[in-house]
């Protein structure tokens, strides 16, 4: 039954995980790219070994994003955005290594919980997933959008920034194949050739987080790198298991949210960590400490985005529908081998099913082993003098932007435009976090809103479609109320301080 477990199989998982971590750790390169690059290899490797390699890349790629998110404040992948909120402040105060260890443990927990959900409940979860029509998916996106307020320094400015992000995300054509009218919109005349598909997410993301940070540092004058002494274990705060005390609920909840978002095709991986982070912040007794280096924030974000890995495999293996962009590529591995994925896949292919589950288990362990023991060297990145580090980051950002869509120069211009915009945003008070959340979720919100109305013909459907819709409205109302209370408390504290 387990004859597929050969030295080659294990080697491919480990090497895939390592390469995936490297891809995830380079700003602008993602798990999706790692899988896309290696997909053609799977034909010659055979199905079990091919999947072993791809699943290693997938788990490694999702996990690697935490490294630059924590050490440099640049999310390696879109799903690591929320890791920057608390990881980077920790690194800045000399707790980079501790933050990395927290992130890696949380990633492992998220990966294993979602894998358990995949193994034990895949068909049942798929049955549940099909209860989510356009209406429920729109409400989940709306719920994720409400977190813009909770993640803002200034609520009003944060909401404005979020809406600006949505506005910018709608530039281009609302594609006919997505149910749109195919008309150009929000485009200055003469730019249709470049802006037909709007701005790509990755270049925008690394522009706002990567290039803008470099420009800010350049403006402030080049700081020196941190001393190696500062980042040694115990220099400021030693990592110990006690940091997870009282966080079991956070880890389980965040992993569960990640898994749940993963099983819903089309909602998108970024929503997983955003929702997990916000749920943890809202549930916290001390929400003000989030965004300033609270370890619970890293745990929520990382267990949420790794929770996605098992979740996204549920619709793929139970319905033949990929849960996210990377699992969409995994379908390629099956089709290249002539294997049908659909509702009977697990029953018809017990060997392949076992091979997938075991590959994901080993990949999670490999991810933990590789990253946990490499931390000491990874953390030294912050000790590299910035006049050397920043040009290297900039070069990687440019390469990442150019390659993300297989060599489109306009993506490099996008990176530069949004790098400068991000720098200007800090000057005029526009907040980057809600902006990027709006930018990521805007197109999906539009598609599901329009399709809901097209399908059901009335706005009341958003309230009457199902009990799930009602529950989501309760969550949305709770999120809005929580944000308002948080903003009031902040204002009161400012007043007291002032």
């Amino acid at each position, binding site marked *: 039954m387990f004859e597929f477990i050969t030295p080659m199989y294990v080697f491919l998982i480990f090497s895939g995980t390592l390469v995936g971590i490297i891809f995830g750790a380079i700003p602008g390169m993602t798990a999706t790219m790692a899988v896309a690059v290696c997909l053609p290899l799977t034909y010659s490797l055979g199905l079990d070994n091919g999947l072993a390699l791809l699943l290693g890349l997938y788990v490694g790629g999702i996990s690697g994003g935490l490294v630059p998110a924590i050490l440099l404040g640049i999310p390696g992948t879109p799903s690591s955005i929320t890791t920057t909120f608390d990881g980077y402040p920790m690194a800045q105060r000399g707790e980079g290594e501790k933050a990395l260890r927290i992130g890696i443990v949380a990633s492992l927990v998220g990966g294993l919980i979602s894998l358990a959900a995949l193994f034990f409940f895949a068909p049942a979860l798929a049955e549940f997933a*099909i209860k989510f029509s356009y209406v429920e998916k729109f409400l989940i996106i709306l719920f994720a959008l409400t977190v813009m307020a909770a993640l803002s320094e200034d609520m009003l400015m944060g909401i404005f920034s979020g809406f600006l992000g949505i506005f910018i995300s709608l530039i281009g054509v609302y594609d006919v194949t997505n149910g749109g009218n195919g008309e150009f919109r929000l485009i200055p005349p003469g730019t249709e050739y470049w802006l037909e598909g709007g701005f790509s997410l990755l270049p925008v993301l690394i522009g706002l987080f990567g290039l803008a940070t470099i420009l800010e540092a350049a403006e402030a004058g080049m700081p020196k790198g941190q001393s190696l002494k500062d980042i040694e274990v115990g220099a400021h705060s030693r990592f110990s298991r006690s940091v997870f005390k009282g966080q079991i609920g956070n880890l389980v909840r965040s992993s569960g949210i990640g898994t749940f978002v993963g099983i819903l095709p089309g909602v998108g991986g970024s929503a997983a960590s955003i929702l997990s982070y916000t749920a943890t912040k809202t549930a916290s007794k001390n929400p003000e400490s989030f965004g300033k280096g609270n370890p619970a924030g890293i745990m929520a974000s990382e267990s949420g985005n790794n929770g996605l890995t098992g979740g996204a495999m549920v619709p793929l293996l139970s319905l033949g529908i990929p849960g996210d962009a990377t699992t969409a590529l995994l379908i390629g591995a099956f*089709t290249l081998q002539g294997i049908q994925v659909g509702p009977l896949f697990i029953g018809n292919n017990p060997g392949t099913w076992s091979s997938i589950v075991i590959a994901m288990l080993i990949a999670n362990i490999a991810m933990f082993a590789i990253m946990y023991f490499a931390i000491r060297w990874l953390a030294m990145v912050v000790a590299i003098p910035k006049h050397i580090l920043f040009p290297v980051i900039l070069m990687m950002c440019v390469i990442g932007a150019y390659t993300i869509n297989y060599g489109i120069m306009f993506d490099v211009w996008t990176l530069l435009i949004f790098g400068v915009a991000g720098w200007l945003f800090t000057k005029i008070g526009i907040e980057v976090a809600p902006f990027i959340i709006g930018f990521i979720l805007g197109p999906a919100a539009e598609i599901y809103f329009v*399709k809901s109305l097209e399908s059901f013909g009335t706005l009341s459907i958003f309230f009457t479609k199902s009990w799930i819709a009602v529950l989501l409205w309760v969550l949305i109302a709770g999120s809005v109320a929580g944000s308002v209370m948080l903003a009031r408390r902040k204002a009161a504290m400012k007043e007291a301080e002032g």
Partner: protein
Amino acid sequence: MKLTRRVILSAAVAAAMLAQPLVAAAQDLPRNVRLVIGSGSTGGDTYQAASLVADALAKQLGVNIKVDAVGASEAFKAVGRDKRGTTIMLHHDQSYLASLYGVAGSPDPFEGFVVGPTLAINPGNAYLVAKNSPYQTMADVLKAAEDGQKVRVAIQPGGVSEIGFSALKSAARATAPGSEENIVAVNTGDQADKNQAMFDGLADMINGSIQANEQFAELPDDDQKAMRFIWITATPEALEQGPEAGVGNMTRADMLKYASPETRVPRPNGEDFTFDKEFFLIYNKDMDPAQMETVDAALAQVFQQDELKNRLLEAFFIPDYRPLAEASAHLKEKRDAYAEIIGNLTAQ
């Protein structure tokens, strides 16, 4: 050893001589060729067909061919920019159907490009109904429309998914003028969306494919996801070339029951509407014709051998090589036939 200019030159000459046998097979073509495809997915049939053909072609020509899933719009732009033969495109009937349906940013490939050799057919394009649907045949669907019942069909508008829908409307109009108004499109997105439209009860019929939907047809009747095939648009000639065992539990004989002439969707001229989804190459119009001939000659050779043909058949593609000139004429004829169907409906 000192690195003098002479040493470096000698090394370069040696490297060039070593590389010589590799390029000898394809002197007209660049050493590295980028095959951009009209789909942005690596999980679909376009990437699969492109991978299989690129692999065989690269071996035959002795060049590197890299398949890039950039999507139709970017693929047309990339080919349009490059007349050196470094970038060529592979796509299917969507390339001209999008233009016929007026999708923004979709050029007419017959105007600005050279539509090249055909490579393979995916005979899987199909329409399905829920297992408990009252419609057993396409005749039932047309009758329902004639009787004034709305038949909602989930499609992805603007291409391959829509052409069968247009043909169905056209058939309804020919059978009972005015009844075509009762065949209503539910505009969705990808296959997941189309399936979901059926699960939600928003569509009475969905566009799908044999490969993607066959397992749903095997589900028990009481399963909310259970579906039934009602129409396969491929020509019987294409299906008959496919493997006898078919796909999953659906044999070739089963498939033929849902295709013409067993299942009929008539065109205005009385013939049955059929649609074979054909994959073909598209070149920059200023690309050196000698390079196109080189590709044609290489394709002719690889399609004479069994390896590529068997790999295509294993993946449920029908080998369909036609040289450039013949393919171009064939596809133009096909385009004109579909333009007539779409034009008639639009004119109305």
